[in-house]
């Protein structure tokens, strides 16, 4: 493979490459001019190459070549004219002649192609400069991976699947895939950049505009390329059309997907500053959000599935196209097919779960009435925004419909009080704890890792580019249901415990879950715990009303054993409340203007945060040194307090 060689060699910088290409091109042009300026060059130069050159120039799609192709016609006409007329060639005729010659001479063709690639790379560089600016490391890595993957698969496609025999056909396919790959890479870059930009609330509008503009340009070009597919398919049969069109459609669908997500994001972020203060515009947006939820969901679903299905069909087509069942190519395609079918299955399962939750929500939990909403002055606990409409759970906690929906898709309890909702989705029933691979969220950009997969080796990912950069990366998902069952030996205890606790709580709704759980850990039997409660041995702690508070988040996880419930009398948020009220008299020099302000300007926010950090560190340092000097040795005998954030009275 020449590819490896290229990667191993230190590539020349873009500048030198451009210079070399231009020099080569001008050399060959000069050469062509020299040759054609001789009166009877046609008779001694062309005949052997003529057929090849015309065969190749007839079909070439690459932009540079189409122009050449157009130029051929006058040239060939010229060839048939008597030499008398050629005595005084006009400039245009001469250019046409030169071009004709260059297309016929193999050496010149290569320099032309080289120049075309050079232009493509320069164009890419220009777009990168204008739209993206400096690429981030992860973006570079993605593009590199994607590039080598693309090259690898297309190599397999051209030589393994279609089994091209003639050089000119190879040239055509290479030209086609170059343009396609170029657009694919751009689309990938746009996606990465969009995901990155969506992590910031303060992205300037123009960078959004440029990105969206580029996305639409890609969309337009992919539509144009689809037209080319149709044209080629018209002459060359359905199979060629299908092979070419699949990639175009994929590109279109992926671009559309990014555009859709982008529009949704911009829509969400519209006026987010004003939204947080809860004014009228914000409210209108929240209401609109409720309505557009399902529409956006289905649009995404359709696009995602469309991309997967087209890809699947494309690969099936490749597999069935020629007798390659026992070749290396078929192996690679089969692996890809397997991956795609799993992806599709996963998407369908996720969708089933979505439908199930939606259905369950609508049937079991009513929308909160106007009075209930009025009584409840709190914001939605999930998104912290005001509720205009809300759904009510049996524990009378209120949430936005869409917020609750997305939470219940992954867990079946009330977010606030943990009341287990008596719902068992078809999927959770099958797999015990909800299969988290179902909930894989579309990966964020670097740094933001979505907790998508359980540590168990569910997911086999082969990243060939780690070893040799041209190797592809595969992801194969292995669903070992049996393994899952085997896993559920000892650990089941807790889910059993949970289930038992739920049983008990249905009988005694006034008992808080943690108390029941504690007792169940000791008794290991629903009956005995129920007896304990009936006999009054188990009492709901005072001050902790039914489902009012989340259990203290203090509990620290331990690995091998069952965790003792940390028995803390007061929830930490309560103590935090009291602290925020007690004025910060502690650190003697903390200027009050830093703590109580949330600036509108991002740079000022950053500056203030930095200052606050500095001050905290300095205050701590001074306090520590003071103490070292023994000037205030008052805390030596301090008992460890749970609410360690008690106001600092030292300084």
């Amino acid at each position: 493979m020449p590819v490896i060689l290229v990667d191993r060699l230190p590539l020349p910088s873009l500048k030198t490459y451009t210079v070399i290409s231009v020099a080569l091109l001008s050399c060959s042009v000069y050469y062509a001019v020299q040759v054609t300026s001789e009166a009877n060059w046609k008779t001694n130069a062309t005949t052997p190459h003529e057929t090849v050159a015309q065969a190749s120039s007839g079909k070439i799609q690459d932009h540079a070549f189409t122009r050449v192709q157009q130029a051929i016609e006058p040239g060939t006409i010229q060839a048939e004219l008597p030499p008398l007329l050629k005595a005084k060639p006009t400039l245009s005729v001469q250019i046409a002649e030169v071009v004709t010659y260059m297309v016929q001479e193999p050496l010149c063709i290569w320099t032309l192609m080289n120049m075309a690639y050079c232009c493509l790379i320069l164009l890419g560089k220009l777009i990168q400069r204008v739209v993206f600016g400096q690429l981030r490391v992860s973006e570079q890595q993605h593009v590199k991976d994607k590039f080598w993957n693309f090259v690898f698969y297309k190599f397999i496609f051209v030589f393994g699947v279609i089994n091209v025999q003639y050089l000119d056909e190879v040239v055509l396919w290479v030209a086609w895939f170059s343009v396609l790959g170029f657009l694919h890479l751009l689309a990938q870059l746009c996606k990465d950049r969009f995901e990155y930009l969506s992590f910031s609330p303060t992205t300037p509008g123009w960078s959004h505009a440029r990105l969206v503009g580029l996305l639409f340009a890609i969309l337009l070009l992919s539509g144009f390329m689809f037209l080319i597919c149709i044209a080629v398919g018209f002459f060359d049969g359905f199979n060629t059309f299908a092979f070419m069109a699949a990639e175009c459609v994929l590109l279109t669908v992926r671009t559309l997907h990014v555009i859709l997500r982008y529009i949704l994001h911009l829509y969400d972020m519209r006026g987010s500053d004003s939204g947080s203060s809860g004014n009228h515009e914000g409210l209108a947006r929240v209401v609109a959000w409720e309505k557009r939820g399902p529409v956006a969901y289905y649009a995404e679903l359709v696009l995602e599935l469309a991309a997967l299905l087209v890809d699947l069909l494309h690969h099936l087509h490749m597999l069935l196209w020629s007798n390659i069942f026992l070749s290396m190519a078929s192996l690679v395609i089969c692996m890809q097919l397997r991956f795609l079918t799993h992806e599709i299955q996963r998407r369908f399962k996720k969708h089933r779960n979505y439908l199930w939750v939606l259905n369950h929500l609508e049937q079991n939990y009513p929308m909160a009435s106007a009075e209930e909403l009025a009584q409840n002055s709190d914001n939605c606990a999930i998104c912290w925004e005001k509720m205009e409409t809300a759904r009510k759970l049996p524990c009378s906690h209120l949430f936005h419909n869409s917020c609750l929906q997305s939470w219940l898709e992954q867990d079946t309890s009330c977010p606030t009080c943990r009341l287990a909702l008596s719902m068992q989705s078809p999927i959770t029933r099958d797999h015990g704890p909800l299969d988290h691979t179902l909930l894989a969220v579309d990966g964020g950009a670097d740094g933001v890792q979505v907790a998508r997969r359980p540590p168990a080796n569910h997911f086999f990912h082969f990243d060939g580019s780690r070893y040799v950069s041209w190797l592809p990366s595969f992801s194969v998902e292995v669903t070992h249901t049996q393994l899952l069952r085997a896993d559920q030996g000892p650990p089941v205890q807790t889910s059993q415990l949970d289930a038992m606790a739920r049983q008990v709580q249905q009988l005694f709704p006034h008992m808080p879950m943690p108390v029941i759980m504690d007792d169940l850990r000791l008794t290991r039997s629903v009956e005995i715990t129920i007896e304990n409660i009936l006999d009054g041995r188990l009492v709901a702690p005072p001050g902790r009303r039914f489902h009012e508070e989340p259990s203290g988040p203090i509990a620290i996880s331990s690995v091998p054993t069952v965790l003792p419930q940390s028995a803390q009398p007061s929830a930490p948020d309560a103590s935090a409340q009291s602290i925020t009220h007690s004025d910060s008299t502690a650190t003697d020099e903390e200027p009050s203007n830093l703590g109580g302000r949330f600036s509108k300007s991002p740079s000022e926010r950053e500056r203030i945060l930095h200052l606050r950090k500095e001050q905290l560190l300095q205050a701590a340092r001074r306090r520590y040194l003071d103490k070292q000097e023994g000037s205030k040795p008052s805390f030596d005998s301090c008992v460890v307090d749970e609410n360690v954030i008690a106001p600092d009275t030292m300084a």
Partner: protein
Amino acid sequence: MAGSALRRLMAEYKQLTLNPPEGIIAGPINEENFFEWEALITGPEGTCFEGGVFPAKLVFPSDYPLSPPKMQFTCEMFHPNIYADGRVCISILHAPGDDPMGYESSAERWSPVQSVEKILLSVVSMLAEPNDESGANVDAAKMWREDRAEFNRIAEKIVRKTLGLS
């Protein structure tokens, strides 16, 4: 989607700036990426970590608050519930679905009503009261149980380091 996560993070940042809990500061490292925060946590009074200011990095998923963030101390730490690389092992940071060990009841796990503030407060009390049965750092757990004096000495060293006094 990132949009709703972003709004929620903005709200939390605002709240943490306007009403900061004592000894805790948290905010995005860079406003260009609101999903990576740095938090400074003051070691709780009356414990071996007293006086130290411990920096930690919080990384939020794009579906926050449906999934919990990840937290990792960026300074040297020696604590039974903190892995050697600084990752914090605490039940509030575990999603309800994923239960690698199968020992936690879902009641203590992550839920969207939790927040950065609650996580940080939990971590403060974890610093005060290690769970010595945890396997996050077995050496630290063992030392905490058996050789408290040595543990305190190491903690003291770490405290000095975080203050830049070493």
